[in-house]
């Protein structure tokens, strides 16, 4: 069985700066793959290449969805979410702050609803088929709101939610697109310990119940070490280690990258 995501020789250059250098890795279905590394190691750049915000300078990014292979580097950025099934969240939360929580989740189901509304024609006429599709979309959204514990805030403006709630809403919104791979950019940043552990539980149920692969960038090592199946360590755009949490945490190259070289060691 082939991997869900295969990245081969990914290189991203910005002028003379090489942000990601010849990176290859795989991410499995139903597994949490963490990408860690010091600031500026190129983690978010990898995400931006995967989700179509950057076009990689070199490399092949392949996602297998329903035995169908999608080459991400050749797709329009906005098609990646719908066709290849990659959803993402952002380091600095990007909700639609003036829209309600429920509306945020409906926008995530735009493609499905747009087709059901006959590109607005059926919807304008108020056909029953569109109304049924909208109810289904609302039901799906409410299901996710229950899972992240935001059902009673469904009619709030998203911008009025607390920080931790906004983080969880962003994950719910990404999941409403029906992805096969969920890319989370520092989901635990700014959360208190209790919220972090709730987040871990949420991610584990997404992995196990929804059968979605998760790619996780995170600096909070307690989160990374407790839920990751595999860890990939980047430094200056290069992969310096890869393996299980236990193997990575004792890897001398990783310790060097995080703590610096020991005095006298060459």
């Amino acid at each position, binding site marked *: 069985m082939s991997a869900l995501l295969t990245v081969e020789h990914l290189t991203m250059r910005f002028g003379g700066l090489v942000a990601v250098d010849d990176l290859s890795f795989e991410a499995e279905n139903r597994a949490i793959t963490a990408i860690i590394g010091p600031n500026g190691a190129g983690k978010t750049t990898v995400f931006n290449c995967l989700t179509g915000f950057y076009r990689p300078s070199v490399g092949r990014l392949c996602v297998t969805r329903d035995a169908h292979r999608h080459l991400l580097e050749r797709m329009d950025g*906005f098609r990646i979410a719908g066709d290849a099934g990659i959803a993402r969240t952002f380091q600095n939360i990007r909700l*639609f702050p003036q829209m309600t929580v*429920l509306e945020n989740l409906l926008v995530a189901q735009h493609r499905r609803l747009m087709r059901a509304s006959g590109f607005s024609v059926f919807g304008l006429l108020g056909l029953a088929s569109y109304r049924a599709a909208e109810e289904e979309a609302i039901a799906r959204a409410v299901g996710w709101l229950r899972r992240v514990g935001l059902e009673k805030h*469904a009619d709030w403006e998203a911008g009025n939610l607390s920080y931790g709630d906004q983080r969880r809403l962003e994950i719910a919104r990404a999941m409403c697109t029906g992805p096969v791979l969920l890319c989370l950019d520092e989901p635990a940043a700014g959360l208190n310990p209790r919220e972090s552990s709730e987040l871990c539980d949420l991610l584990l149920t997404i992995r196990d119940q929804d059968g979605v692969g998760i790619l996780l960038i995170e600096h909070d090592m307690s989160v990374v070490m407790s839920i990751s199946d595999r860890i990939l360590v980047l430094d200056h755009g290069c992969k310096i280690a890869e393996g299980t949490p236990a193997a990575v945490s004792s890897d001398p190259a990783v310790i060097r990258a995080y703590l610096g070289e020991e005095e006298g060691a060459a």
Partner: protein
Amino acid sequence: MGVPLRASDRGSFAGALREAGMTSLLAAAVMLPMIGVFTTPLGGALAVDTRLPEIGLAVVLVFLGRLGMIRAREGRPLEAACVGGAVTAAAVFGLFPGDLLTALAMGGGLLLVTGALKASPQGTAAWQSVMIRAQNTPNWGVWVGGGLIVFAVVLPWLPFVDRRLLDLATLVLIYVMLGWGLNIVVGLAGLLDLGYVAFYAVGAYSFALLAQHFDFTFWTALPLAGLLAAFFGIVLGFPVLRLRGDYLAIVTLGFGEMIRVILINWVPVTNGPDGISGIPRPDFFGLSFSRRPPEGTGSFHEFFNLSYASADRVIFLFYIVLALALLTNLFIRRIRRLPVGRAWEALREDEIACRSLGLNPTNIKLSAFALGAIFGGFAGCVFAARQGFISPESFTFIESAIILAVVVLGGMGNQLGVAIAAILLIGLPEWFRELQEYRMLAFGALMVLIMAWRPRGLLAQRAPTVRLHPDGDGS
């Protein structure tokens, strides 16, 4: 106001009188040189005339108003309310010369009364309960909107409405339509468009040219005018897809000017600055509204056995615009609740998040431009039918600015707010005509006042497109 007040004066009636006196002196000092003296032509020469009685009256009003304010502040709201009530009553009974002074006195008096009520404890409690009730009545907008619609429907039959006023109401409704159309682009999709007048012009010239060369009637040209405007909307949309904010505004501004310059210079087609005249008036199912209809067609008054009245045509046009405006409103209200409407708003909020969710920003922007332009085109078509004559003069940048002002002052994205703003911005300058050259000054002051009072527009509240707990308190 920075009038010095001695500490011993605080709270005493004499102190209040002194302060009010200082304020009215200041008012007199400002008014006398500015509007107190003016010149009138007198048999070839200029004579100096004065407006002393009016200014005296205004100074007295300022004195009373200031006195009322001070007494209200010092915990005697009853006195202030009495003063305000007396001034308002005097204005209502027409004791002041001139409409403007009457209106100012009336407004000032009412402000004083409401201010006094708010200053007294019982008044504050009553005011708060009214505000809470208003907030807990989510449908108040429906009531106000419905009231406005009913008022518009009966307007032509009200006793005080003459032909001139109805014509003005038609113009206001055209601007309501334009405001709602631009609201799609600016209010919902968040794309600042300073060249909206271009679509208005396209609609007007489409009808004029189709009628002139191909004998199209109003009703056959109307959909085509909308479609052509939508086409131009897409044509404008393509080059500006990658632009946002200020840069988008500059390019759209240029587009609006381009259309106008083309209309001026493409003389063989558009007849240049001379414009196109003889644009046909809308007919009623083939019945014209002229006294003697052309050969082979019937006329409205003959068919219904009425005596001929030239006002019929104006009333009919008013109802056409009203129907089109209501249709526009219905369309936008529905489409806002559809995926495409939500996508517009999402695009306004965060384009990057939209892309990450699989929304195609290109299509969303183009659909916003095209649909916004359609209503501009319809409005242009109606405008041409109302005027009977169009020229590039009618489609200058100031029109775009006014339409944008309607949207911004009304509250971006709010339909009712836009309608009210259109009534204020288009209706009031006509009412201010008495002020002559100070008309635009009053207009500007009004805009500044609205923005100071409600910085996000008259009605800035956004109604969610869907609610999970419709009767809940939202918490």
